[in-house]
């Protein structure tokens, strides 16, 4: 399925060999017509920039279709050279350049350049011994990135044959091997090559020659986990809800009665217990989920439906009952959040709106109110943070604006001053009602809701600047929580570290060591005092999915070892490696 350059039309290739054109209308799509149907499944499509032609790749051939007439103008066999092999050649990816050149990537590992008008092969590059699966062209059409089934991506560049000359040819230049499995999707931004593969990784590889200055863009980034909260915790009931792509799992935490020193593993007196697995119906992926703090409500949402369940624990048995007559939401939730007293549910929705539901005993719910920014908003809300006293709610929409609502009177309270970066996590302090915001560029802000301004600590942080090592980290903060015992403590975590931010301590400057916990341990008590700074970082748990404070002396940390899902991956393409 590919949209045309103007975004007004949508072309869909089908298994039966037909290509259907849909008109994009406000609020949906509308079938327009069928283009010329030929035998052979359509595997890939590409629009010409002008929207006049579509090229469709199939097995052993691809064809160029004139959109206006709907007729096939050219049908080109890609399998001519390798007739002896008798293997079918699957065109996995295709691109139609504005010059009229068709670029095809096929299962023989070739990237071929065709003149579609003549139907002739201009260039052929065998980039890999295994299949070339994906293809993306840069905006200027002078560079192509190809993903292959061995996990390697290659860049092809249009370079002059003679310096300063007009004649140009495509040259395979940089190979990158960052994936272990198929590279299913690639994208070409102006400064980076982006690839995603079957090994559940997203890799952003900067093109150093295009990057102007050293910064976030100039570093290779690898993402394994989504920058979203996939685990929610019922603090009072000590339950954890894990969100998987097709199902939810509810676990009861184990506990121990013993105490020990740092580094010891205590024997649990009660083992953690898998209570229930909740499968979502249909093929859709679960988009968001949440468990209420009391542990009696579980809600989740897919792309089309929103579901709410009532959990009853009687003795050892756990029963789940679907809450009937949940108000239909269109579109469904982008984020779910229960209030601290578990009496209401906040549903983040499109156009900057947040729906407030009242939860009723023994198992019902009622739509109370819909909160909306006064100026209106086109983007959906993706993060919610209710205050512990039930007074405030902070909501972040896709345009990165943070709106704060008063829940007592269901009114818009204020907007946090705009910052040119995405919000990755936010939370409201239970005692001071200060909103702590973490941005994706690793900046931290504290905003006082009652006073509608940044706190003095936040200003101090901004004037002083955060530590360089902190700013150069890879992954954004995904969750923020607080220590009720010590209001100066803010607990943060990302995929690789867990941090206790102590506002009462001085901020570190660039000359000091940011991660100094191990060195502090070796120092005597008096010297340690002088070395202390605000960031107390622990990197013991990696990759870290979730961290929350259950009660005053109990912290729950969810770690997901990479090997857990690496072992579930299918076998990688066999490659002979020299020296093995």
């Amino acid at each position, binding site marked *: 399925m590919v949209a045309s350059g103007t975004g007004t039309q949508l072309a869909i290739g089908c298994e039966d060999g037909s290509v259907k054109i849909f008109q994009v209308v406000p609020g949906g799509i509308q079938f327009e017509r069928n283009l010329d149907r030929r035998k052979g499944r359509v595997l890939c499509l590409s629009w010409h920039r002008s929207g006049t032609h579509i090229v469709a790749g199939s097995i052993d051939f691809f064809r160029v279709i004139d959109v206006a007439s709907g007729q096939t103008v050219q049908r080109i066999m890609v399998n001519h050279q390798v007739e002896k092999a008798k293997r079918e050649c699957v065109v996995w990816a295709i691109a139609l350049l504005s010059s009229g050149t068709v670029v095809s990537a096929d299962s023989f590992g070739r990237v071929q350049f065709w003149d579609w008008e003549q139907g002739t092969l201009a260039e052929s590059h*065998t980039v890999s011994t295994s299949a070339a699966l994906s293809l993306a062209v840069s905006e200027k059409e002078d560079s192509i990135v190809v993903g292959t089934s061995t996990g390697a991506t290659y860049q092809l560049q249009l*370079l*002059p044959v*003679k*310096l*300063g000359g007009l004649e140009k040819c495509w*040259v*395979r*230049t940089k190979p990158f091997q960052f994936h272990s499995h198929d590279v299913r999707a690639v994208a070409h931004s102006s400064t980076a090559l982006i690839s995603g593969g079957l090994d559940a990784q997203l890799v952003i590889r900067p093109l150093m*020659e295009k990057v102007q200055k050293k910064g976030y863009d100039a570093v290779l980034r690898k993402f394994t986990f989504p920058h979203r909260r996939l685990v929610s915790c019922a603090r009072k009931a000590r339950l954890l809800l894990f969100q998987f792509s097709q199902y939810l799992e509810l676990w009861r935490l184990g506990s121990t009665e013993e105490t020990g020193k740092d580094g010891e593993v205590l024997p649990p007196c009660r083992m953690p217990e898998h209570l229930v697995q909740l499968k979502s119906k249909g093929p859709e992926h679960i988009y968001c989920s949440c468990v209420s703090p009391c542990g009696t409500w579980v809600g989740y949402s897919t792309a089309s439906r929103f579901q709410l369940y009532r959990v009853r624990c009687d003795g050892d048995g756990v029963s789940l009952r679907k809450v009937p007559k949940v108000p239909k939401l269109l579109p469904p939730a982008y984020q779910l959040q229960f209030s601290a007293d578990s009496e209401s549910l906040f549903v983040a929705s499109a156009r900057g709106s947040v729906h407030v539901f009242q939860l009723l005993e023994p198992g019902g719910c009622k739509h109370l109110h819909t909160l909306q920014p006064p100026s209106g908003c086109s983007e959906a809300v993706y993060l919610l943070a209710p205050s512990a006293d039930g007074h405030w709610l902070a909501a972040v929409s896709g345009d990165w604006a943070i709106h704060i609502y008063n829940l007592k009177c269901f009114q818009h309270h204020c907007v946090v001053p705009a910052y040119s970066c995405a919000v990755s996590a936010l939370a409201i302090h239970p005692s001071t009602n200060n909103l702590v915001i973490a941005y994706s560029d690793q900046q931290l802000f504290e905003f006082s809701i009652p006073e509608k301004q940044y706190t003095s600590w936040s200003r101090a942080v901004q004037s002083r600047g955060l530590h360089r090592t902190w700013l150069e980290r890879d992954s954004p903060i995904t969750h923020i929580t607080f220590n009720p015992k010590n209001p100066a403590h803010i607990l943060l975590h990302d995929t690789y570290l867990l941090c206790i931010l102590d506002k009462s301590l001085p901020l570190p400057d660039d000359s000091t060591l940011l991660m100094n916990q191990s060195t502090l341990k070796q120092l005597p008590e008096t010297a340690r005092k002088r070395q202390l700074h605000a960031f107390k970082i622990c990197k013991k748990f990696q990759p870290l999915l979730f961290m929350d404070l259950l009660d005053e002396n109990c912290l729950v940390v969810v770690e997901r070892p990479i090997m857990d899902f690496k072992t579930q991956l299918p076998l990688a393409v066999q490659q002979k490696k020299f020296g093995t």
Partner: protein
Amino acid sequence: KSLLNSAIRTQSTSQYLLCASGDFVKVYSVNTEETLRLMGGHADLVTGIQLNPHNHMQLYSSSLDGTIKLWDFMDGIPIKVLLLLVSDRFFFLWSDTFQLVSVKLTKGAGQDLESKELSVVLDGVGASVKHIAFGREGAYVVSVKDVTLQVYFFKRKLLNRFSLSTVKTKGGDNRFSCVVCHPTEDCIATGHADGKIRLWRNFHHRKEYTYSTLHWHHDIVMDLAFSVEGTRLLSGGVESVLVQWHNESSCQKDFLPRLGSPIEYISMSSDGALCCTLHTDNRITIINSNLRFSRSIQGLIKSRDVKTGLVVDPRTKALVLNGEPGHLQFYSLQSDQQLFSLDIVQRQYIHQAGLKQSDLVKVAFSAQGTWLATVEESEEVTDPELQLKLWFYSEETQSFTLNTRINTPHDNHITDMCFRDMDELGDDSLILVTTGRDCVFKVWVMVEDTDPEGKSAHESVSWSCDFVGSYHNYQATNCCFSEDGSLLAVSFEETVTVWDSLTWDLKCTFCHPPGNIRNICFGRLTCSKYLIGATDYGFLCCWNLLTCALEWSAHLNIVVLQPDPLSEHIAAVSWLSKESSLFVFKPNEPRPLYIQRNLCKEKILLAAFVPRDEPETISSEKYLWLRKSQLFFLTDTQELMTLSTKSLEERLTPSSKQLAVEESLPVTPFSLLLGKHRHQQAQEDTDLGKPVVHNKQEQASPAVKELLHTPAHVLPSASFLCTIFINSLLISKENKSAEEVADEVEMESEKADGDSDEEDVTVMEQEDTSPMELLGEMTCKLSKSQEKELRKIRKMDYSWIAAF
């Protein structure tokens, strides 16, 4: 003094292969593998050769002597000599940094030109020719050094410098090893120390340059070459595999494996039909364009380390030494080619650094060459795995077959080995002696096998140990049999012991402290009562075996002591203050017969006397000791040298020169028609051409020089010398007339004047000219009668010189 085949850089057309070898440029025929011409004239090492891009029959060569010469290699005539004030064409040395300079080729009419117009193009370039390449149509020049690539565009005067990271990760090593440019496109190919090949494009942008990588080699890429069209790229390295990459794609590549030894250089012929690879063992392989092995030109194999010494095979008179790893090469000196290679170790050799492999360390032949003893040991220092093998020459197969294998003959390294040389007594008296660092020497004899199944006489014998001797628990270092085989001398550190070979009794000991004995040998023929020894502390001693006393000793740091098997002469090579000197003496006289100081700058490690097929007529009294055999030296850079009494040009047979003329004609029906006519003409041409080619004449008569350089107190009376002096003047005048015709006189005289060491120069000149009868026929006929007379006079008069 001649150098045999230490090739440096090759350039080839489809018919001729040009190769810089030592001070010379060699021209080989591609079709016959024959050396067509040896172009000498450079006074020092030739560092680079390049075909003239405008005329493929011309060649530029550069040398460390600071000149660039333009040759017409068809005739072997230097066309122009360009004198650079500094050292080299491409580079000159300035405190460890090399610079690339451009030289304007002046269009002067004269032959010798001096160029002062030098302009520095690039600073800090790599020292090797492989580190510099010129781009398409000479638009830019590329140089690599360490991890930096420099491109200089001549027109835009733009210098771009690209650096790779110096960090060595995962066995990666980004240092450049070689660079070549695409002939038609703007693409640079570089080889790297970790085996990668990078293809650079867009390098006129400082930032948006890009490269792709080809990786097959597991170790350093030694050289690269593009085909003429640029569609194929050849690469080679230590794997001994030539890799052909198509269209710069890493997926399409062809291999030519098993080339024998690591590839050092790759060169394409100018028409693209052939390519050739030069290997580290001094071999050139010619390869077809479809990557098929065509033929190879093999000189003396350069092995990693000559441990066996120079040994002469008594049967073939070939020089025998380490060849390929684990092999023994038989190298024919007459034809400058390898006769055959004998696999001694019989194990697969793996090209990998740090791997301990067995190699051949000692070799000895029996007097008639029927038995060959070899010792091999693994490279481990502490526990060498030793094997002594005895080989018998079988007449049927015309090669050596293994007779006995003895594992661990000694507990430590074997230091020396010799056979008892007794021609008249036959095989039964054959004795082999080995000395080891385990402080013993062992005597090995043949025993008859008790097994009746043995068929032939030699299959039924095997070797076993007969006697083990030691002396005060000293390490045995050398052993030597006297000429009649009755005495065995074994040196134990500081002491030489003499043993009776029948009863194995210790007869007497000799000692000349301080210092260990380095070499020992017995005198021969009339001097067989003498034993010669050289010590570490620089003494050459001669002991009389009859009186058991020191006859004489001399203070000389002798590194090589080599007796001539056919005469009493012993050659000793000393190494003093960075130069090697040669002394030839007879043991019964403490005064040397012949001294050649400053033989060469390199250290001479080994020497051997090779018997001549027939005694040569040597006119000069000074070289009489070379009459029966020829002396060869091997230096530490593995160059083989010899003292020659002939000029180099004469070594090449005239037939090969005719061949060159024939081959230069393209074969067309018309040329075939004209063939007969041309053949006659060509013969006339060569007849006429000869005197011109060979005109290298002497400056002054040897007799005059002899007269002037002999110390006054040993000269006979003046009246006695007068006739010789006058006679010699007469002869040299005859020669002068012929000399005036020659073109090269100026050059020759210049060379002579420039050289400071006058004594040596005279010797060299003399070598060039002494065999008069082989010069052009016309001069020969004219002076034959006079020459006879002269020889008579010389023989008579020079007898007094023999007294020295």
